[in-house]
């Protein structure tokens, strides 16, 4: 210890330090004895490993909706209409119902958000949120873990406006726990400036064309990146097997090891794509529609062999305090006229019937954009990644993450 040898420290101070040190030594001894016991105590208790996970029931908190006219809503960034720093549709909702919406754009990533709320949900505590928008597979996981409350459709008569194709989804048949907020496709985007004017129309080209070498990004969303490769190999996403998945992973791994792929990204692929640092990438429709406003030359291709369709869905977490208010909010956005206002800004695919008809009146060009209001022929080629069991999810994610961080 330095204090002993330092002549500058006067003896009084020294006695201080020593008194503390001797106590600290005692504490250390205690800690060493208790260490093993403490380690044992740190496990996640209260759950038997053999308990079947399907039987979990969510905890319900008393609904304060009638006395507290508020909703806490967590959503993805840039996923709401904006006008001069305000959200016109939210303000109109408050005016109509007297319910104030605390709108937080703190949902940046399914996994990160899950990590944030899981400890609270797991210990049966209120997350401080009444509603948020999770992607399909995350809804499946939340539901499986018993973290979601069933929706009371009596409060959401407009739910009847949900488009037919999204009613009986595999992870939530009949939409008992979730309602889509926005949908979108994952396809291939490219910047002609960096591809030498070339069109990039298949995953095979994206992963092997020497002209794109080192200028390709894929998405960290496993189901989109791997899904596109699987469909190119003729595999149906509704019935993908472990072998097929592993084969697709191998294709991506080869491309990565050859230096074709420079990275895996979240929403942040947009800037390099627009600047040309990224020549081509897997991208989401709404982003590209928005990017094209500034860089009209950007290309976007929905591959012939198929592309992924995903939705981000309203869900109400266990212990939510304002469930009825949240249901009223869903009902409000399932009015096609309101959804059309949102759509005009976010440019994704609306899950509400009649939105196109409502938008034609105000913005006919947008209403005729096949990426925002896809035709039946386009929709027929879209596929949804099948629900995965807990074991499959772990195994698939592990393989994919070995690529992303390998």
């Amino acid at each position, binding site marked *: 210890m330095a204090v002993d040898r330092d002549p500058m420290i006067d003896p009084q101070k020294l006695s201080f330090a020593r008194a503390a040190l001797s106590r600290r030594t005692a504490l250390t001894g205690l800690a060493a004895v208790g260490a093993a016991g403490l380690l044992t105590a740190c496990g*996640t208790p209260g759950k038997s490993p053999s308990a079947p996970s399907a039987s979990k029931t969510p905890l319900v908190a008393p609904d304060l909706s009638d006395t507290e006219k508020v909703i806490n809503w967590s959503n993805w960034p840039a996923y709401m209409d904006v006008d001069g720093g305000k959200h016109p549709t939210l303000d109109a909702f408050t005016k109509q119902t007297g319910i104030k919406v605390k709108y937080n754009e703190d949902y940046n990533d399914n996994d990160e958000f899950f*990590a944030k709320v899981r400890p609270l949900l797991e210990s049966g505590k209120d997350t401080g949120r009444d509603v948020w928008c999770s992607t399909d597979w995350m809804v499946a996981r939340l539901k499986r873990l018993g973290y979601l409350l069933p929706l009371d459709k009596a409060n959401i008569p407009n739910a009847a406006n949900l488009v037919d194709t999204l009613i009986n989804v595999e992870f939530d048949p009949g939409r008992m726990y979730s309602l889509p907020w926005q949908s979108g496709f994952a396809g291939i985007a490219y910047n002609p400036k960096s591809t030498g004017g070339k069109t990039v129309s298949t995953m095979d080209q994206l992963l092997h064309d020497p002209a794109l070498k080192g200028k390709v990004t894929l998405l960290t969303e496993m189901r989109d990146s791997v899904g596109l490769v699987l469909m190119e190999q003729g595999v149906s996403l509704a019935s993908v097997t472990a072998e097929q998945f592993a084969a697709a992973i191998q294709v991506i791994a080869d491309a990565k090891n050859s230096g074709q792929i420079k990275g895996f990204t979240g929403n942040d692929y947009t800037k*390099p794509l627009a600047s040309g640092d990224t020549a081509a990438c897997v991208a989401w429709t709404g982003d590209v529609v928005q990017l094209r406003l500034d860089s009209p030359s950007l290309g976007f291709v929905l591959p012939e062999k198929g592309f992924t369709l995903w939705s981000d869905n309203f869900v109400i977490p266990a212990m939510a305090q304002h469930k009825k208010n949240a249901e009223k909010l869903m009902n409000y956005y399932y009015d096609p006229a309101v959804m059309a206002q949102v759509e005009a800004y976010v440019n994704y695919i609306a899950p509400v019937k009649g939105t196109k008809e409502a938008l034609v009146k105000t913005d006919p060009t947008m209403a005729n954009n096949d990426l925002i209001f896809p035709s039946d022929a386009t929709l027929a080629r879209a596929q949804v990644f099948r629900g995965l069991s807990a074991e499959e999810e772990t195994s698939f994610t592990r393989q994919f993450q070995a690529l992303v961080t390998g």
Partner: protein
Amino acid sequence: MALAVPGARPARRRAARRRGTFTPLLLLAPAMLWLTIFFVIPTFSLASQSLQTGDIDNGFVLTWHFQTYSDALGRYWPQFLRSLIFAGSATLITLIVGYPLAWFIAHRSGRFKTMLLVLVIAPFFTNFLIRTLAWITILTDNGLVTGFFRATGLINVLRWLGLVGNDTLLYSPFAVIAGLAYNFLPFMVLPLYTSLERMDMRLLDAAGDLYANGWHTFWKVIWPLSLPGVVSGTLLTFIPAAGDYINSKLLGNTQTTMIGQVIDAQFLRVLDYPTAAALSFILMATIIVMVGVYVRAAGTEELV
């Protein structure tokens, strides 16, 4: 630890009693509490987690599964090694850049001293992420920096060193190391400045009087006296840089993954908490050992 000088003990006891037995404890309490809540308990929790098995559906149970450690190390040793190399390179660069800068600020900047110090700290007023993202713009393919490296042929040197893959600077080991060096530069400059600033300048005159040339003066006088600053500067840079994952995530490619990114992915995406905890522990242990060896070798344990 040469704590016990038996004869002195009663006197010390009396001194402690005179001041109130609990005073030293009370004074230590906030720091101890802080350490306990934010270091000791999390460390035990992490240690426990690293030895558990299970998954999020069925919960995790402590099974003393030490194999997680060997599995994790077997699978991710390249990322470990890379993290140490990247962090080491960045530390070396900050030292080479920071030393003259700290010297200049301490002894040659005159009335601009305060302003220059503020400038060194100024980047901290901007968010860490924003600062790193700015490097994407700086190193962009058609930007000035890349143009300069191409025109001077320096890019070929970098390629020969394996620091870039093709004729672009972004998304390469070069970009990651540059980002790390930039982000941690102030942590190097400030301790260096502190130890250089309080150096007695008459020692340099004395060295000159004894016929030491510039190099000898630096190597025999300035450098040894600045060692405390060098040691704390390198530690403050190396330790966080080794665990950093933002720079490699934003400025690197799929071949520049650092261990922080792996831990992040295991914790948040794979949800394999034991592996993530084991990796965190291995990183911690590696750094502690390296720092221990380094501090001992530098012979400055009293000065850090």
